[in-house]
């Protein structure tokens, strides 16, 4: 039997309805049906929604994709020697921080992509698959439901980013000066703030879009917003505007890598754009990681609140 036939057989396997089971054999008292429990706190209910969403992620493709990406990191790192394009995309150095940044140079696109996959249709899926009709009438507030799901998505993407940093650190144990500074930790913090921004923006969009979308938030976060930031300084030739736009939260990952000493990030919109139109635009992303972190958190919180406002008022 071919693999295709086996797969088709597996898909066809549907359990046939059966009524042969015996009915209940416990009395109401034995089944504790007359016991009344007090509802848990709002935080506890939020955590329950969080765990349920995490459990759902473990059975979805996003988890497989993330694991593959993490496994690929060392493979690409060791395989790149001698391959020009990979050496250009993932530059190496004897300085540990720069070497780590080189390994993580895919991060700007990956964070946006993973956030979009994890959050893009998380809420709309609940309504389309009609699972919300089961969860929302339960005695918990919509805020618990909303925040529980968001926290799960944020943990997933944040966890992958943290794991990527960990793997990069392990990979630089050899061939570098092994000088690990606080900049590495600060870079991780900025990256997590950027993850928060990406997740909350995508999550907010998923509350508005009926069918959810992975592509739309990706285009918005990776292309539209950075493009605006790159083009506007051409019309307003003022350094201040250029500097302010450099702190748009969509450049969070660039800032995180800049902190590690990798100033010319290739795989980000800024890097790609400056390669296509070199010298035309003198635009650089913000340099202060604290300001960037604050901007990411505040804008993320704003989008998160907007999303909650939509969900709270939504008639299912």
């Amino acid at each position: 039997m071919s693999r295709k036939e086996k797969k088709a057989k597996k898909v066809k396997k549907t359990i046939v309805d059966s009524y042969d089971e015996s009915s209940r054999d416990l009395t109401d008292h034995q089944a504790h049906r007359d016991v009344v429990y007090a509802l848990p706190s709002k935080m506890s209910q939020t955590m329950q929604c969080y765990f349920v969403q995490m459990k759902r992620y473990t059975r979805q493709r996003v988890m497989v994709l993330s694991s593959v990406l993490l496994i690929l990191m060392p493979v690409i790192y060791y395989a790149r020697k001698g391959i020009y394009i990979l050496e250009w995309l993932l530059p190496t150095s004897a300085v540990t921080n720069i070497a780590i940044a080189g390994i993580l140079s895919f991060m700007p696109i990956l964070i946006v992509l993973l956030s979009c996959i994890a959050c893009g249709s998380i809420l709309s899926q609940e309504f389309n698959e009609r699972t919300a009709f089961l969860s929302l009438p339960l005695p918990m507030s919509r805020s618990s439901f909303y925040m529980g799901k968001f926290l799960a998505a944020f943990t997933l993407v944040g966890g992958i980013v943290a794991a990527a940093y960990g793997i990069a650190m392990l990979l630089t144990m050899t061939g570098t000066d092994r000088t690990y500074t606080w900049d590495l930790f600060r870079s991780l913090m900025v990256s997590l703030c950027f993850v928060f921004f990406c997740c909350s923006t995508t999550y907010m969009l998923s509350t508005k879009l009926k069918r959810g979308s992975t592509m739309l938030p990706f285009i918005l976060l990776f292309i539209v917003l950075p493009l605006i930031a790159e083009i506007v300084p051409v019309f307003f030739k003022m350094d201040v505007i250029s500097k302010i736009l450099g702190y748009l939260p969509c450049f969070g990952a660039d800032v995180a890598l800049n902190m590690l000493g990798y100033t010319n990030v290739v795989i980000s919109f800024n890097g790609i754009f400056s390669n296509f139109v070199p010298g035309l635009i003198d635009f650089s992303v913000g340099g202060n990681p604290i300001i960037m972190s604050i901007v990411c958190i505040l804008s993320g919180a704003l989008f998160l609140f907007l999303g909650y406002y939509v969900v709270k008022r939504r008639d299912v």
Partner: protein
Amino acid sequence: MTAQTSGCPLHLERLKSSSKPNFSRCSLAQAIVPIGNDLFMLGSKMNVLNLMFCRTRDIQVIGFTPMDDDSDIGQGLSLDVRNLTKRFGNFTAVDNLSLKVKKGEFMGLLGPNGAGKSTTLKSITGLISPTKGKIYINGIDSVKHRNAMTHVGCVIETPESYPNFTPTEMMQYVGRIHGLSNKEIKIRARDVLEEVRMWSWRDKNIGEFSKGMRQRVSLAVAMFPNPNLVLLDEPTSGLDPRGMIEIRRTMNSLKKRDMSLLISTHILKEVSEMCTSMTMINHGKTIISGDVNKLIHNLAQNENTVAIELRMLGDLTNKFISDINAMTGVSNFEKMGEGSVKFSFNGTDDQQADIVDLVYAHKLRLLCMNETGADIESLYMKLTDEARVNIK
């Protein structure tokens, strides 16, 4: 166990000693506190701070009931909907609708498509927010307090469980939201899954189940918190006849547990079989409400004409046919087959009894006398026709 407070008896349920009351969402509360061997009710105007103060003393609060300012709410009622209105833009889906479901009552919510049944049920469960009106579940305002849904089970618009979860995992999710311990969840999960005959499928993915099985899992989820009010919106829609019968059987078992039920359905047989009362709505307004049998009886009295079918053993002679045709109130006589006749009858109960006497006078043996015309279907048709005429 019953406690007496201000002349108002209150049923006290068995409370788990480990459970902690959640005061966060109620401003006014009735508290049940054990002092010595007795149980006492504290005043209904007690606020959260007072309750917290009680807890710091030797008095331990073991339960509470959030209350609203309206003192007449929830007396003997599981559900009290008052002047509910829901507008979607310019369209009014529910218009000033009032509904009362007593404790232990099974009520059917009937109406044609677009009448506002689902909107009413969604408003009650908080899936949509009402434009106007109040909804009290067991005396608690469900719009203001989400914990009003603690003792409510519902199946609204064929909900789906997470397809990559098993029934046991769904029970765990619902149980933890209700604050049950793991041990308790295991006991109750087994109980409700056995009740809906899904216990043997407890570890299979719900995504692999048939529609009927998924619906039974939804019903198990609804029954998991041991609700005293169950809300069902077309629970048998899309099921095969066997699935329908199974779901109905499960719903009938709720009667034994003194639960209240509000069921919205298009299947009139379900209402006549299960419900004690019914409310019929059209264009978001109540057309009629009351006891099912009384409403049908009233219809029969108003309509007068019913169709009667007789099945007898023996030869139907021409004399018998002419005699029965000559009886007062009999019209449209029709011979259906061997030993079977059908006719319209418009007369009193005595005259109807005379027909039976006539059968025996002709030495025929009566097998069956079926009276149709005054049933829930004719009531439904009459009321919807009237509503249609009124609109025209």
